[in-house]
């Protein structure tokens, strides 16, 4: 058995054996309840570090030679291997995982260097290096990466921070949703997207909601985009009927089988991208896709192939990259404590996801969130929000009072967004910032202005 001898590591006379590369990766992962649930996590802390030490010595090219999930069985693996660019990889082809960490942290790995690397990397390599990085490493390297995406505004520029306005309502009531949209705009939010999770997934409902936001955007010439986060097939049908679709949403995951459980595949994603591009609704760019992901989704769909949840999450980013998204949102704490148990696990996962996405060249955002049965609270969310802000995360959610009354979980609020912009001196997307100032919502220092009842947006009701 070659693999048994190949993946063995000894510490002070004690020998740790791993079943294969996927086992090393799983055991090297920071502690997550989801990997424990899958039965693939390290048994104890020493074994975890042994796996990390072994992983640090594994050459990056091993991930090309030994795919964690066989390309014969998985269309995502085939996509990732096809897209990986050998030319860009050349510079690092002799690096081990440990060398790669050192390289990423070095002064010479600046924004341009890291951008040039992105297309040469497999998500598995990025996941591997994140497993031997501490939180500050994840923050530092991510902060050196720059990714910019555009539709009606420009997202991801240095010194900028965008917010998805999430005005959900339990019955998709137009006035209720409209009230939350106005509330968010008045707090300077909505430049990433005005994105509604519909309570009911119907073509008519999606069409109706899209039309009402489109009317608002056009009437007030708001430089932003809208999205109704229904299933992709529903959005395709709405487009066929002439609905004003700006960007197309879909939840995606890191294996073919998990995507199938979401009712989608690579062909359908390509079809939706082409359909949205053909509408030509962007003004400053044509990034027309919005993806959401989250650690644990593959296990939840019983489609994890024995691979740890963080590596699978990075593979989902590889899927996203193929479709040049405007936004990629890791919904980090939504899935519940059986996958990420507490604030510590949620914070670590959020930083890992953001790092992996950025290094792969994706416009990363994060739904900094938790459910009431997770051992987490607002202080944990403040920590993750601030850490990700420092790391250069493109966007966060803006939910009225952080309390999503439709999805029943806690995310980040309009107030939280303004906090982060204040403390890190970050501004909204430039086109949106100019609009907010023109509308007398913020002043030249990006502080909120008092708004009286005669404000044009309020008169619109």
């Amino acid at each position: 058995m070659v693999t048994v001898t190949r993946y063995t590591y000894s510490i002070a006379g004690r020998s740790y054996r791993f079943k294969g590369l996927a086992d090393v990766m799983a055991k090297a992962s920071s502690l997550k309840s989801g990997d424990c649930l899958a039965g693939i996590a390290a048994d104890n802390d020493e074994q975890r570090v042994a796996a990390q030490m072994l992983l640090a010595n594994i050459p990056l090219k091993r991930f090309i030679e030994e795919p964690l999930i066989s390309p014969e069985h998985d269309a995502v693996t085939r996509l990732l291997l096809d897209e990986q660019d050998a030319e860009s990889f050349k510079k690092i082809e002799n690096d081990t995982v440990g060398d790669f960490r050192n390289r990423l942290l070095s002064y010479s790995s600046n924004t341009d260097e890291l951008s040039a690397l992105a297309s040469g990397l497999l998500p598995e390599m990025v996941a591997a290096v994140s497993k031997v990085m501490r939180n500050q490493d994840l923050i530092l390297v991510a902060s050196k990466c720059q990714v910019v995406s555009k539709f009606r505004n420009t997202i991801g520029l240095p010194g900028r921070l965008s917010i998805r306005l999430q005005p959900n309502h339990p019955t998709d009531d137009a006035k209720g949703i409209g009230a939350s949209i106005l509330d968010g705009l008045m707090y300077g939010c909505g430049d990433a997207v005005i994105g509604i999770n519909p309570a009911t997934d119907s073509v008519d409902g999606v069409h109706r909601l899209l039309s009402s936001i489109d009317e608002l955007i056009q009437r007030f010439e708001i430089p932003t985009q809208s999205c109704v986060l229904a299933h992709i097939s529903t959005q395709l049908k709405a487009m066929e009927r002439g609905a004003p679709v700006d960007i197309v949403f879909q939840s995606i995951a890191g294996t073919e089988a998990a995507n199938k459980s979401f009712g989608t595949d690579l062909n359908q994603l390509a079809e939706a991208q082409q359909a949205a591009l053909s509408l030509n609704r962007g003004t400053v760019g044509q990034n027309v896709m919005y993806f959401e992901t989250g650690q644990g989704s593959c296990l939840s769909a019983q489609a994890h192939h024995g691979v740890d949840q963080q590596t699978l999450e990075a593979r989902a980013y590889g899927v996203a990259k193929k479709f040049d998204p405007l936004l990629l949102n890791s919904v980090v704490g939504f899935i519940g404590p059986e996958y990420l148990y507490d604030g510590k696990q949620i914070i670590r996962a959020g930083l890992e996801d953001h790092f992996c996405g950025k290094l792969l060249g994706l416009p990363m955002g994060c739904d900094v969130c938790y459910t009431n049965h997770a051992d987490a609270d607002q202080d944990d969310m403040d920590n993750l929000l601030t850490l990700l802000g420092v790391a250069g995360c493109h966007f966060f959610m803006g939910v009225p009072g952080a309390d999503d009354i439709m999805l029943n979980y806690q995310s980040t609020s309009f107030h939280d967004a303004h906090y982060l912009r204040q403390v890190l001196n970050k501004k909204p997307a430039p086109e949106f910032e100019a609009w907010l100032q023109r509308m007398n919502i913020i002043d030249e220092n990006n502080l909120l202005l008092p708004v009286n009842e005669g404000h044009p947006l309020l008169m619109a009701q």
Partner: protein
Amino acid sequence: MTNKKSLVKDSWSNLRQYTSARIALGRAGGSLKTDDWLDFKLAHARARDAVHGEFDAEALAKELSSIDLPALLVSSRIKDRAEFLKRPDLGRRLDTVSKRLLSESSDTTSDLVIVVSDGLSASAVHAHVADVLSKLMPKLLEASWSLLPLVIARYGRVAIQDEIGALLAAKTALILIGERPGLSATDSLGAYLVHDPNMANTDANRNCVSNIRPAGLNYQKAADTLFYLLSEIKRRQISGVEVKDARVLMDCFIKE
């Protein structure tokens, strides 16, 4: 908090009539006002307390003795609350003692087993189960349903009714279980119904009635809805996505 000078009011508070979302809160600088922050914290504290609240199965059995069904007390394979939150798989399975107890009570002539479990809110179960059953039981008896003993399961997840129902040879299983507490309600009870309970069933085989509590779906409406669904399941010998509540359209989230 008496000094209002540092606060900014939002002039669109009239929009609150359209949504229960936390809009037009106003601000201290750009941040939440002290009152709003502490209100939020209170709601979350109540939700957390509900998740970790103690389930008193014996007291519940005593309280439910008035409905004239013998009660069997069982337990999932979960040992404590922390494990319950981490291992939903074990919460769907019975421990060995419970399996033996149920096997001995098997009865192929019965229509229905009603299961009660703490789930994610023991307080929901303690607050509402007796009232819901007191409205539902007379309907079932009048329609000549034959019932198995009531099963009270500690640390259960929704699918535990499949193993319970299978061991008892029940034709249909109904579970009343505490839902995940939210910020606005910490004591919502959920009900899940399944025909031919067995371990191969999935969410698609179950019908769900959510948000049972006086301020949500009240006891009478909950009992009416459950009785309607049970009757449909019995008539059509099937449960799940193909059985819809034609009278009340309810979107149901899987909130175990």
